[in-house]
């Protein structure tokens, strides 16, 4: 396959996916309309997670801290300092990036199982921090942002983030942007190096690459996307609470990515969408729906490790990035 043909197919697949999500807003009933905003924002989180797990081969079990950094970074700013939502969003994303680099400087000294444990410990520390400063964060109970605080003026027009149509399209814009970032990174020479690190770290070092620097950069971008997703989440839904920093929010992205296809660009988006509704359905039947989540995780790891897009790629569709 020529590079030009491959580029066209990649554009068609990912552009098509984005276009489909954009058009869904005109047919979805209200309830699902709101769900899709969630899904698109969480998909950005999944994309960020996948850059680290799927492309660099570093399994983090503590990504909730980066999502929560964005959530709290933006939410606290709006609540306490009446930041403009645009500023709050940028601050939230930056908080994710900053925390990721900080954690990375320590955690990247480890690898494999140790890396999983170290990231999980950091995330637990972050979670406990949100509880400890209960006076500020209101811990589990959380804080609600007012409608007034969630609107801002842009070129003379007021943009109200509680408005469903505005919210949907901004969420879509964020997802489309994140997809574009992922494609740019993954198809770039730097992306080639990340994949090389995943495939054989020692070999990559012996090709002259400063492996730790690439890992830190991947973790930074991963934290940035996770933080951006967290910031968007709090601005769109107006609630920030400790539960978003807890362990389930570190496990969900793993689940979304595994279902959609680890190490694929489109996979996390599909995975987030399907898993969101699987959990919705499970919740209708039982309050202990986390058992279902656990069962799905087991089945995926044991019988379906490549996920949906990954399995498709393995069937002779090697062009899929």
């Amino acid at each position, binding site marked *: 396959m020529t590079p030009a043909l491959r580029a066209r197919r990649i554009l068609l697949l990912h552009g098509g996916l984005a276009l489909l999500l954009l058009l869904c807003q005109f047919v979805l009933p209200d309830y699902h309309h709101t769900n899709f905003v969630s899904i698109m924002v969480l998909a950005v989180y999944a994309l960020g997670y996948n850059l680290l797990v799927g492309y660099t081969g570093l399994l983090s079990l503590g990504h909730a801290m980066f999502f929560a950094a964005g959530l709290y970074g933006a939410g606290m700013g709006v609540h306490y300092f009446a930041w403009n939502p645009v500023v709050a969003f940028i601050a939230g994303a930056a908080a994710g990036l900053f925390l990721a680099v900080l954690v990375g400087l320590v955690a990247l000294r480890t690898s494999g199982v140790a890396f999983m444990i170290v990231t999980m410990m950091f995330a637990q520390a972050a979670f406990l921090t949100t509880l400890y400063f209960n006076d500020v964060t209101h811990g589990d109970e959380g804080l609600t942002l007012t409608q007034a605080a969630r609107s801002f003026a842009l070129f003379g027009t007021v943009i109200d983030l509680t408005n469903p149509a505005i919210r949907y399209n901004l969420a879509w814009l964020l997802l489309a942007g994140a997809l574009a970032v992922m494609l740019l990174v993954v198809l*770039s*020479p*730097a992306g*080639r*190096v990340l*994949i*090389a690190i995943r*495939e*054989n770290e*020692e*070999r*990559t*070092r*012996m*090709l*002259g*690459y*400063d*492996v730790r*620097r690439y890992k830190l*950069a991947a973790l930074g971008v991963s934290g940035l996307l996770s933080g951006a997703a967290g910031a968007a989440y709090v601005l769109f839904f107006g609630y920030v609470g400790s539960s978003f920093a807890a362990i389930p929010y570190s496990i969900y992205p793993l689940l979304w990515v595994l279902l959609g296809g680890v190490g694929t660009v489109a996979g996390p988006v599909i995975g987030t969408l399907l898993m969101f509704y699987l959990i919705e359905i499970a919740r209708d039947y039982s309050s202990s729906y986390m058992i279902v989540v656990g069962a799905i995780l087991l089945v995926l790891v044991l019988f379906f490790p490549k996920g949906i897009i990954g399995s498709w790629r393995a069937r002779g569709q090697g062009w899929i990035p």
Partner: protein
Amino acid sequence: MTLLAVSNLARSFGGIQAVADMNFTLENGEIRAIIGPNGAGKTTFVSMISGRVEPSGGSICFDDIDITGLRSWERVRQGIVYTFQITSVYRNLSCFENVALAAQQQLGRDLPFWRHPPRAALTVAVEMVLEKVGLLARKTELAGELAYGHQRLLEVAMGLALQPRLLILDEPTQGLSESEIANFCALVKEIGRGATILLIEHNMDVVMELAHRITVMSNGRLLAEGTPAEIMANIDVQRAYLGT
């Protein structure tokens, strides 16, 4: 001109002295073979030169610069390239991608970390190296699906794409057939015209054909050093290694 000068290099693992008090120099343009019985410390020795193993004593100078404190990847950038004893290619990537990873590093070496060489130059560099080792026709095949001999060639191609000044080959002919070995020797001679080569090898025919000089190690120490003819005639070597 001396390219590599190693003095008093040592390494112990626990109580075992793998390499002790090695003094060693390598001239520019030379093809040097290191031989010795299993466990003589050959791989540990070259691993210290490539930076994969930290020495517990001694120093290494490359091109008159002390590199003892440099990381392995920094040494690659200085031109010291190591090819693995156990074939270490990216099995899930194509031959092209495997070599491109090496060529991209070489071409982008002086660029800042986030910038990369132009695609056209990269393709030219990769195809030139694949052509040289005879794998150009297989450039789209996955490395893991190549025959063993071809994987070894790919490993060498990755080394070549880094444009080494010193190429370290760790038992490169192990597991190759007779005809593959003949081709391999021709390739190493060809590479030897542009680079200095340090070769660990058990196959004495290969050693005799390729090496300008031979270093013999035994029990982590230098036993003898000289031309192939001198080594063949050395009584100590015969006793320790050749077994006659």
